[in-house]
């Protein structure tokens, strides 16, 4: 089932001579348990696609459905509730609140959603534990390494019952080993049934996705076919030397 569906989504900023078409008729469907990567150069519309998918911005035309419900038909409150409950965001610069501990950062979206503090804290701790950060739960962001901070950000994005994960260059400036950890965590979340959209210009990150969609000048110009089994690589000519 499609957790996220974009149908003919366009986004235009400005008017007349300064008009910019950030997205032009984008169709995209992301099923539960699937990771889709969106690749494209700067200015191709990647980040706009993500903010529209996360209902942080409205499209100029076209439809966005999350869990089968059209965002355009929701009240502002309903959209805010959806953002808090069903959608998790992972940003390039982590966006942790410096005055809160790791556990408090992770529990925050649940508390904002009205979950009792004690329950929220327990869920936050469980999410941190799941990412191997249980022992760092009471540390503040500036006491954590870059890799740990991004894992806290991922814990915050998956805490509770999120169905849709939206990630914008989720490995930020992390080195490649830490970046791989980040992708493994996002991938594990997908294996548990979450749908994820990862926006990146980094092919190594994108290669973790089940499907890679290529964006250019606001249009989807291409996408990868379902991957063949890894066996094909091991028997390919030229690989045996």
């Amino acid at each position, binding site marked *: 089932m499609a957790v996220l569906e974009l149908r003919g989504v366009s986004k235009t900023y400005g008017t007349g001579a300064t008009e910019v078409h950030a997205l032009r008729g984008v169709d995209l469907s992301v099923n539960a348990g699937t990771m889709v990567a969106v690749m494209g150069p700067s200015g191709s519309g990647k980040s706009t696609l993500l903010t529209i998918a996360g209902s942080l911005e409205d499209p100029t035309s076209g439809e966005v459905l999350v869990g089968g419900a059209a965002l355009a038909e929701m009240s502002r409150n309903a959209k805010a509730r959806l953002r808090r409950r069903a959608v998790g965001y992972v940003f390039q610069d982590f966006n942790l609140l410096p005055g809160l501990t790791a556990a408090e950062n992770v529990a925050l979206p649940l508390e904002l959603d009205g979950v009792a503090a004690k329950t929220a804290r327990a869920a936050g701790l469980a999410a941190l534990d799941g990412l191997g950060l249980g022992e760092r739960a009471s540390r503040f962001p500036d006491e954590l390494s870059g890799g740990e901070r991004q894992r806290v950000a991922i814990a915050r994005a998956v805490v509770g019952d999120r169905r849709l994960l939206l990630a914008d260059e989720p490995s930020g400036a992390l080195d490649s080993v830490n970046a791989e950890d980040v992708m493994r965590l996002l991938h594990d979340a997908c294996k548990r049934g979450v749908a994820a959209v990862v926006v990146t210009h980094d092919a190594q990150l994108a*290669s973790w996705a089940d499907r890679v969609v290529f964006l250019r000048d606001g249009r989807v110009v291409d996408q990868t076919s379902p991957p063949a089994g*890894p066996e094909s690589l091991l028997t390919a000519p030229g690989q045996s*030397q």
Partner: protein
Amino acid sequence: MSVRHALLALLSEGPKYGLQLREEFEARTGEVWPLNVGQVYTTLQRLERDGLVESDGAGDDGPQKGFRITAGGEQELAAWLRTPPDLASPPRDELVMKVLVAMRVPGTDVHEVIQVHRRYLVELMQQWTRIKEDEGEFDLGLALVVDAELFRLDAVIRWLDAADGRLKRAAADPPRPVPVALPRLRRRVGVRR
């Protein structure tokens, strides 16, 4: 990949049998490089001839024949580890040629040509990443081999991205006059106008 030096490396850990060497070679390279038994024995014979390994004796050539590295073999191995391989680029990289040619063929959208190759490379990277995802956490050798492939393919994609951006910018900007000093350099790197 030098089978010769790989065998020396395995023997640097201690004496081993021929069959054992083959199994360990495949295990250490993430089983990405299959090796047949004949190759192992031919290489061992040459290493022995060159005085880099010693065997248990002349008689028995079966799988139970043991080999050990000599002092000369250890020196050879140490020198090989520190000798940079030939990384000079091939005289004509086929993908670079295709993109350069695509610029000149009437009715060809070079961006579309670039995208065909980009998609193919990303699909290859997806397959390598699947292998790393499944087994890389448990097999360090395999993870290193897969990383090498991923970085190599990634570099090609980055070149395609750069070419894409450069061509887009060139199409928007008027051409500038060419400075006189350039043609010789241009010939050296193999680019003709």
